[in-house]
């Protein structure tokens, strides 16, 4: 599969340019470099800027003016309205419902998927058994299968075990589809730890769980953080599974947001829509900004996920 180790070590080297050495004086090419980079950044920031500005304007000002211009009169009313009054169908209790649904989905999904995958990665590295690598191969290959191929049989399975439409059914789905990437992440990390640690603990009489909890977990906090970042953003941003496996009352935030903004009924309140969009994006955005390089490390490993 993809050579992760290379991407990995390379991502740690992100500091310190290795490209063509720039000349000392300010040359035309130097100005070009900065110029192009600034144009690109402008393109990247623009939507965020527009979203923020629109969400702080009143509707009359939105109708009158330029979507790029900052508000003449700042109002937080759209935010309040998006959070507590925006309507989806007959429900007018705002995006807060979707937010809490997403919290209820994300927390157990993240915790369970990480526990399951970390134990699994540990078993794959330190307790190899016949066929373990074959199953792991299938697991990685499965990461590339389009979800659409599997969604309907999973509906049947969830119905059979009575979890269809239930938050726990969705948690199970997220755990399943998080398995390939997380197992890969943990397996690679545990494999990079010195084997002597494991052997020494075994000589001391520690068992399967003893070694895991007392030796490996305390040493692996960075990788648990990476996994957490990967899962929180991934699950928070999910739309497809949320819309299929939950009932309208339990829809995650992304689904509710889409229903609010793309609803055809009523007068469009663009400022409220943008506030709602921004609120939904705020959670992964905050995690991204706080986590910095760890986020990059997660997606570098995610290079295999597709």
């Amino acid at each position, binding site marked *: 599969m*993809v050579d992760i180790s*290379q*991407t990995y*070590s*390379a991502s740690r*080297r*992100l500091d*310190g*340019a*290795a490209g063509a050495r720039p000349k000392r004086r300010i040359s035309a090419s130097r100005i070009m*470099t900065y110029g*192009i*980079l600034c144009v*690109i*950044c402008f393109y*990247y*920031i623009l*939507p965020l800027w*527009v*979203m923020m500005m*629109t969400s702080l304007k009143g509707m009359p000002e939105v*109708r009158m003016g*330029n979507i790029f211009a900052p508000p003449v009169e700042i109002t937080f009313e759209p935010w309040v309205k998006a959070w507590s009054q925006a309507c989806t169908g007959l429900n007018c209790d705002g995006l807060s419902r979707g937010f809490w649904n997403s919290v209820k989905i994300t927390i157990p999904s993240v915790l369970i998927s990480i526990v399951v995958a970390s134990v*699994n990665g540990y*078993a*794959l590295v330190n*307790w190899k*058994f016949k066929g*373990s690598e074959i*199953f792991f191969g299938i697991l990685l290959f*499965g990461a*590339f*299968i*389009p979800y*659409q*191929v*599997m*969604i*309907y049989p999973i509906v049947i399975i969830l119905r059979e075990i009575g979890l269809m439409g239930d938050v726990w059914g969705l948690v199970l789905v997220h755990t*399943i589809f998080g*398995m390939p990437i997380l197992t890969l992440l943990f397996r690679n990390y545990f494999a990079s730890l010195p084997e002597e640690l494991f052997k020494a603990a075994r000589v001391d009489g520690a*068992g*399967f769980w003893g070694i895991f909890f007392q030796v490996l977990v305390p040493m692996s906090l960075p990788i648990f953080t990476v996994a957490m970042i990967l899962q929180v953003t991934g699950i928070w*941003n*999910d739309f497809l599974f949320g819309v299929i496996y939950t009932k309208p009352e339990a829809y995650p935030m*992304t689904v509710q*947001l*889409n229903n609010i*903004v*793309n609803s055809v009924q009523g007068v469009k309140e663009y400022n409220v*829509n943008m506030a709602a*969009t921004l609120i939904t*994006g705020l959670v*992964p*955005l905050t995690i*991204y900004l706080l986590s910095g390089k760890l*986020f*990059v490390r997660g997606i570098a490993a995610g*290079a295999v996920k*597709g």
Partner: protein
Amino acid sequence: MSVIDPVAPRAAGRPKKLIANPMAKIAALPMIMTALVIFIGCSVWTVVHSFTKSKLLPSSQFVGFDQYERLWSTRRWLASVENIAIYGLVALVFSLVVGFVIAVLLDQKVRAEGAFRTIILFPYSLSFIVTGLVWQWILNPDFGIQYIVRGWGFENFTFDPLHNPDTVLAALLMAGLWQGTGLVAVILLAALRGVDEDIWKASRVDGVPAWKTYIWVVIPILRPAFVTATVLIATGIVKLYDLVVALTNGGPGIASEMPAKYVYDAMFGKQNLGQGFAASTMMLLSVLLILIPWAIFEFRGKKRG
């Protein structure tokens, strides 16, 4: 090990390996179940049922390739395939080229490189729904870019890709590339940092211009990173769904329909499971067509190395 496997009695003389580490097997059970039941079981189930008459409920009455014949004579499916082909090709080429250019620019010892990197990658952390809705607003003809440019005095300026069947894919690309190009840039930047410094010394001694060194020396070295990025983009494109739902919902008409949306609508909207199964099997097939050459390439590379 303190755990005793009740199924396998510890008979004398038996190789110890047979009952070794039962705990590890239990720990690996979720992986085994996921691999066998979901990835293999569910996929096979769908492929098998794509040959049945399934309508509202899955049926076991086989009808051969009927579903596929219907699928390939449905206008909406044909439009979806055409759309994903155009979108995919442009997105792939554009994100690799622009991603590489951004990576090279960032590798020129620029000041505030960290800030630039943070900016180009942040859209990747957002949901496709958020991305789609923001771009829907920016491209809104009555308030967005069109309105503003008209305000500058260009009264006849038209820029309304969302409501024009001929250009709606451009709108999807603007949003999709906004979200995804940063990732390609960061992957390639990481790979650039792994390129040996001596290459630059050697090319300077030989008097080779930097851009030639990039094209003829550096890009071949970065081949693994390009392959990774390509597989990543390609498999992502096949799954393209959320962005379309949020930005255009397939419209205007069927101008921006996508295969993944066809599957969802057939299964959960039109109660036409057979069509959904056949369409998703086609998606699986196309992913295999991407993956198998790549796997062969990787395998050969490893064998040689």
